[in-house]
């Protein structure tokens, strides 16, 4: 197809989409429609752009008489505006921190504010109120809201939040989220003194997911090298744990992983995906030194492995230039 034809096609598609969006916005503006219909209209409209529409969105979002679903959808529309308008930012933070607001409204505010935080201006001058509102939302009975708020706080490395999460994993307070989720949140702060807790969870996991996450959290801990080496060598160990261990050793023992990974990759009685992961480890540890003797191993695996992941890994090894 010629470029011009393609351009015309795309232009046509954009024009159609624009028409649909404009129609959706007109439906949204109609106060006669039900809340559900207006929410559907918003989904079709994409991002509201005109100031009058955003003003209306903010007005409806502030009206507690309106259905929570509609208010939540409109709060989602306010994210770009909040990045340039302190008043809208303040409005969203107040919705988030207000324990009397329905959970969907507060959860929508979390998402909208996360987006605002990425803007250049960020949360200028209102961060303290934002963090306080998040901490309040982290106490909510609503699981979705609680997890969203905790997720943001953990990424912000909020010390009181991370302390609570750690205490809940240690059984010193009520669980806020599942153990796997709690461990994932703790991983945002690698400088917590939780090595003992993580190793305990690896030994006595409440779930497979929690064990895997605990292993991932230990992946930056140099003192866990022997644990991961043992896991990699143990053929009776579950595959996921061994794959995490290979990745961890690549981080904490980049010099030592080559030899171990070469040995395992060459073992024809070994799991295919494990062999593939070891080939990748060898290839990426020091690409210039990719072992030529493993090329035969990789060639066979690329052609004959039943696992797609193993074939892809072997192909990556073969594509890595060697000395």
């Amino acid at each position, binding site marked *: 197809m010629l470029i011009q034809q393609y351009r015309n096609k795309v232009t046509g598609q954009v024009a159609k989409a624009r028409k649909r969006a404009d129609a959706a916005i007109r439906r949204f503006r109609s106060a006669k429609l039900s809340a559900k219909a207006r929410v559907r209209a918003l989904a079709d409209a994409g991002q509201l752009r005109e100031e009058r529409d955003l003003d209306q969105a903010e007005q409806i979002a502030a009206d507690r008489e309106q259905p929570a679903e509609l208010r939540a959808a409109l709060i989602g529309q306010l994210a770009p505006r909040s990045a340039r308008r302190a008043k809208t930012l303040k409005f969203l933070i107040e919705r988030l921190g207000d324990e009397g607001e329905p959970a969907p409204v507060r959860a929508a505010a979390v998402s909208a504010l996360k987006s605002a935080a990425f803007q250049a201006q960020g949360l200028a001058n209102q961060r303290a109120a934002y963090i306080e509102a998040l901490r309040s939302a982290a106490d909510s009975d609503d699981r979705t809201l609680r997890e969203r708020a905790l997720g943001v706080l953990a990424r912000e490395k909020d010390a009181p939040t991370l302390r609570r999460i750690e205490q809940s994993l240690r059984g010193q307070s009520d669980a806020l989220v599942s153990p796997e989720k709690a461990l994932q949140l703790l991983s945002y*702060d690698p400088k917590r*003194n*939780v090595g003992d807790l993580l190793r305990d969870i690896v030994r006595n996991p409440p779930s497979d997911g929690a064990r895997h996450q605990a292993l991932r959290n230990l992946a930056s801990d140099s003192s866990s090298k022997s644990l991961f080496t043992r896991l990699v060598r143990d053929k009776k160990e579950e595959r996921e744990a061994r794959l995490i261990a290979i990745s961890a050793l690549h981080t904490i023992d980049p010099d030592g992983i080559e030899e171990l990974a070469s040995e395992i990759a060459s073992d024809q009685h070994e799991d295919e995906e494990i062999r593939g992961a070891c080939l990748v480890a060898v290839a990426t540890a020091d690409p210039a030194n990719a072992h030529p003797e493993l090329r035969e191993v990789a060639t066979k695996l690329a052609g004959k492995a039943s696992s797609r992941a193993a074939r892809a890994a072997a192909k990556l090894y073969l594509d890595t230039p060697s000395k």
Partner: protein
Amino acid sequence: MTIGSPERRLETPADVLLQIQRAREDRSERAALVELLHDAHPVHQDRSAADVLRLRAFVMQAFGELGLPDSALPYVLGELESSRHAEGLAAAARALRGGEPSPEYRSVLERAAEVARERDEYVSFASYEAVGSSREGVIASAEIETTLAWISEATRAEPSRCCAPPPREAAGIRRIEARARASAETIAGSGLQDQSGALLKFGELLIGQPSIVAFFYTRCENPTKCSLTMAKLARVQALLERRGIAANVAVCALTYDPGYDTPARLRAYAAARGFKPSEKYRVLRAVPNDAELSAYFDCGVSRVGGAVSRHRIELFVLDSQGRIAVAFEQRAWDPARVVLEASNLLERPRPGHGLGAALSALALALLPKCPLCWVGYASAFGIAGLETFGPWSRPLLAALVILSAGTAWRRARRLRWYLPFAWVALGTLSIVVGGLGLRLEPAISLGAVAIFAGVVLSAWGPRLLWSR
């Protein structure tokens, strides 16, 4: 570091709170609180970075009430310069108000206020466990603004009496007199590995010329600490080149995290920040571990599970014997200042230095040695040769040339510059073997010229080379 007497060991937050109470009753107890600000204090070890931050902040803010000792100033100002945590910034701003106001703190506070606005949150020091909120707490930027207002008020209220410059300790620069410097013998044999994987000893690299050693680690998340340190070391390199003393000063970056920071990681980290490794400039890790070096430098670092938890900014200028001569601690350091301190440690000819060599050269100069001098003396006394001055002249001449050679050798070893000694040795051989042994007259003349040239080069060469 000193951590107080056994009965006053502060090992838990509860001990720390008790110490704060003691300091309320007796101001002399503040010294133990200042020790707690040292990142290497035992109370911080194996504690999460967040907990260390909280503990230090809690101690620091107490100085706002207890009065701020001068020894705590570098910690407080360092926190304002490099912290990216609301708690630390608020505590430091509050602590500063426990001391004397100074307009010189304004720029540090203003920069801290910018950082605080990006990282602001409510903090509370009502109790150790207190979590800040709008009901109970302050925001960091407001605390900093309060301190700025306090300084403005002081300068406005009594302009003639305000404000004395900050005490010297505030700069965070500790200079150690030569006679008080701890010997580096204990660590001369400590193992190091550089960014290329080469293994060497501390003594090989850092003894024999002045050197600059800064600490960092690649997993540091604070851009105003390790990343900036490496970039500033690159600046130090450039300044040394400009002064023409790049070959005379070693520059090393040493990691706090030898287990993780492999040579490849060290190499990549340095390259990304403009530091150019070479024979004299290295990025290093201690092998097999950094216990000895940490102890020698009294590194300000706390660890959790073997990994680095928190650390201060620190850079050391070592003399040619590897001893710490100047320490830049806590505060952001200026590359030009560091280079100046290092260049001050370079060997300079001092009054009297090389005197022995100069005297022996002078004595040697008085003895007839040039062919014309011989002719002159011979004609004056009627006899050619050393017998002119009696039988003692040969042994005297031999003793003088040996003395001259010995002095030149000592100096060459100290400067690690052997060219002058080579001249002296050649001249000595010429006189002793050629002149006194084989009785070749020109050999004495030539030998004396060579010795004299070597001595002059040794005594004044370094000044000529390094005066730029």
